[in-house]
C-alpha cells in the first residue's frame, strides 16, 4: 500500500525500469487495496483479475529480457464501463446490458493493449453516461472518496473515484457535456476532454455522437498528457477521427516554459456570475494569480452566448440519445422480457431495461425531433450551437487559452439533486459549451489545504492540447 498513494504513471515506469517492483506485484497490490477499500467507495462494477495478471506478466517478461517497454507498459488502469474490452462485461450501468459481454475491443482498448497497459476492471457511471453524479447507475451508488456522504460527480464517477482513492494509477472516462471534467473536479484529480476527433470512439457505447470524446483521468497533468498521447490517433473505424489526431508532438509531454509564458489566458466574465459558490470563486481566482505568476498575460474576455449553452445542449444531446439508444431493444443482445409479439417486446424490454433519466432523455429527444417541433427546437439549437462555437473562435483571436471554473459548486450530497433534473443539469453549465464547440479542455485540482476539492478548467484551441497541458504541468510544479 505504501506505493499506491503516490504512484503516478511516471513513478511506476521509473520504478519498473529500476526493478524496485514488478508489474505483477503492483497489480496484485491494487487488487488487495480494491478488496479493502471499494466496499466503501463502490467505484468498480466488475474486476478483471485473470486478464490483468496476464497483462502484467507480459510486461515483467519484457523487463526480464531487457526489451524496451513504453511509458504505459504494465500501468494498472480503470476503464469506464461504457467501453468494450473483449470477453468482459460492458453494462453502461444499465439493466438492459446487465448480461452483455463485449465481443470486440474498443479502439482505445486495442491501443492500450498494444502499449502493454493493465486493465484492473470496469468502473461505475450514470446509466449510458447520462448524469452528473453517478447516482443514475442501475447497480450501485459511488461515493466521493473525500467525503462519502457526497457524490463523486458524473457521469464518469467510478473512474474519478477509483483514481482519487488510489484504486488505479489512472483511468479512462468519456465526456459528452462534462462527464470527465466535473467528476475530476469533485474528486480532486486531473481530467482531460480532448479535441473532438482526437480519440476514436469505436467501441464506446454511444450517447450523443456529435459531442462524445474519450479521455484520461490521472493524478497529475503530466500523467494525463502521457495517457492522452497513448489514446490519440486517427482510426478508420470512427469517421469523425481526424488525420490531425496523429500529429501531436513531443511538446505535449515536455512543454517549454519559454513557450508557455507567451500564451495569453482569457477570463470570460459570463462564467463568474451569481450562483457561483464563494469557495469555488476564491480557489479559481487563486489559480489565475498562480498562472499569472508564471509570467502569462491574463485578459478579460466575453463569450456572450454562454447562458444559452445549457438549453442548446439539452436539445441536441437528447435528440442524438433518442437515435443512438434505438438499438437497445433486447433483440440481438441485452436482457429480453417475455412478450406475445415483437412490438410488445420492444416496449417491455425498454420499459424494464432503462432507468428514469435514460427514459426522460429518450422522450425529450423524440419530442424535439418530432414533426411540428423540429424547427422550433432542434433546428434552432443547431443554429445556437454555431453561435456558441463562434464565441470561442472569436475569443481565440485575442487569447490562446480560456480559464474558468469546472462546476458552480464542490461535490454535492448524495440525493440532493436526484429528484430535480434541471438543478442536476445546471452542474454542467461551465463544461457543456466546450463540447458544443468541439474544443479540448482540462480540469485541474486547485491547490488547497483541505476541504472539498475544487477544480479549474483550461480550454484550448482545437488540436492545442499542448497549451492547456503545458500550463497545467507548470502550475503543478509551483
Amino acid at each position, binding site marked *: 500500500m505504501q506505493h499506491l498513494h503516490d504512484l503516478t504513471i511516471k513513478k511506476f515506469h521509473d520504478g519498473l525500469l529500476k526493478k524496485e517492483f514488478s508489474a505483477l506485484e503492483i497489480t496484485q497490490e491494487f487488487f488487495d487495496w480494491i478488496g479493502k477499500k471499494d466496499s466503501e467507495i463502490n467505484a468498480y462494477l466488475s474486476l478483471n483479475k485473470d486478464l490483468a495478471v496476464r497483462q502484467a506478466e507480459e510486461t515483467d517478461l519484457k523487463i526480464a529480457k531487457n526489451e524496451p517497454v513504453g511509458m504505459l507498459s504494465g500501468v494498472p488502469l480503470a476503464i469506464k464501463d461504457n467501453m468494450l474490452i473483449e470477453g468482459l462485461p460492458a453494462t453502461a450501468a444499465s439493466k438492459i446490458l446487465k448480461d452483455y459481454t463485449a465481443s470486440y475491443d474498443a479502439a482505445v482498448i486495442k491501443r492500450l493493449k498494444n502499449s502493454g497497459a493493465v486493465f484492473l476492471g470496469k468502473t461505475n457511471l450514470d446509466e449510458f453516461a447520462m448524469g452528473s453524479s453517478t447516482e443514475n447507475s442501475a447497480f450501485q451508488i459511488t461515493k466521493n472518496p473525500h467525503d462519502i456522504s457526497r457524490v463523486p460527480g458524473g457521469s464518469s464517477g467510478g473512474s474519478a473515484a477509483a483514481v482519487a482513492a488510489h484504486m488505479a494509477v489512472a483511468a479512462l472516462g468519456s465526456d459528452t457535456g462534462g462527464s470527465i471534467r466535473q467528476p475530476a473536479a469533485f474528486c480532486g484529480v486531473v481530467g482531460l476532454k480532448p479535441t473532438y476527433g482526437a480519440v476514436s470512439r469505436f467501441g464506446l457505447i454511444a450517447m450523443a455522437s456529435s459531442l462524445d470524446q474519450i479521455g484520461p483521468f490521472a493524478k497529475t497533468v503530466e500523467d494525463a498528457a502521457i495517457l492522452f498521447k497513448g489514446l490519440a490517433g486517427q482510426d478508420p473505424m470512427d469517421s469523425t477521427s481526424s488525420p490531425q489526431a496523429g500529429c501531436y508532438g513531443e511538446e505535449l509531454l515536455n512543454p517549454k516554459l519559454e513557450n508557455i509564458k507567451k500564451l495569453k489566458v482569457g477570463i470570460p466574465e459570463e462564467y463568474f456570475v451569481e450562483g457561483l459558490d464563494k469557495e469555488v470563486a476564491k480557489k479559481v481566482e487563486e489559480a489565475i494569480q498562480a498562472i499569472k505568476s508564471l509570467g502569462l498575460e491574463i485578459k478579460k474576455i466575453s463569450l456572450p452566448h454562454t447562458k444559452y449553452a445549457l438549453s442548446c445542449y439539452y436539445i441536441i444531446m437528447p435528440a442524438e440519445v433518442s437515435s443512438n439508444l434505438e438499438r437497445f431493444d433486447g433483440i440481438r443482445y441485452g436482457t429480453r422480457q417475455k412478450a406475445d*409479439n415483437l412490438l410488445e417486446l420492444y416496449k417491455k424490454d425498454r420499459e424494464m431495461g*432503462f432507468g428514469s433519466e435514460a427514459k426522460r432523455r429518450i*422522450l425529450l429527444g*423524440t419530442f424535439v425531433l418530432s414533426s411540428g417541433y423540429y424547427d422550433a427546437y432542434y433546428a434552432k439549437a443547431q443554429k445556437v450551437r454555431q*453561435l456558441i462555437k463562434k464565441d470561442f473562435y472569436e475569443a481565440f483571436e485575442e487569447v490562446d487559452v480560456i480559464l474558468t471554473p469546472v462546476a458552480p459548486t464542490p461535490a454535492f450530497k448524495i440525493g440532493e439533486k436526484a429528484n430535480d433534473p434541471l438543478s442536476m443539469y445546471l452542474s454542467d453549465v461551465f463544461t457543456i459549451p466546450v463540447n458544443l464547440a468541439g474544443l479540448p479542455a482540462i480540469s485541474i485540482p486547485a491547490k488547497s489545504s483541505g476541504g472539498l476539492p475544487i477544480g479549474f478548467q483550461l480550454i484550448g484551441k482545437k488540436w492545442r492540447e499542448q497549451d492547456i497541458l503545458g500550463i497545467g504541468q507548470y502550475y503543478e510544479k509551483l
Partner: protein
Amino acid sequence: MMNKKDLEHLAELARIDLKAGEEKKLQKDLGAILDYFKELQELDTENVDPMAGGTDLKNVVREDVAGTADNTGKGPEQFPDKQGGFLKVPPVF
C-alpha cells in the same frame, strides 16, 4: 406540464411502455425542461448556418478493399434467444 396524451404519443414513438407511477413525474419534468428552452427564442438566428454535427471533416471515405474481421461469429453468442444459430424473436403480429 406536458399533457398526458402528448406523453403517451412520444412513448409510443420511442417504443417504451410507461409505468403508471412514472407518467406524472415525466409530465412535470418534461414540461419544466421545455419551458426552460423558451429562452432560445430571444435569440435572432435568422442568418446563422446550423452547426450539424461536431466535425469539420467532409466526405470521409476509405478504399473499397476486402478485409477480414477478427471477431467473425462473435455476435450470435450474445443472442438472448436462438435456434440453430439463428436469432429467435416472437411473431411480428
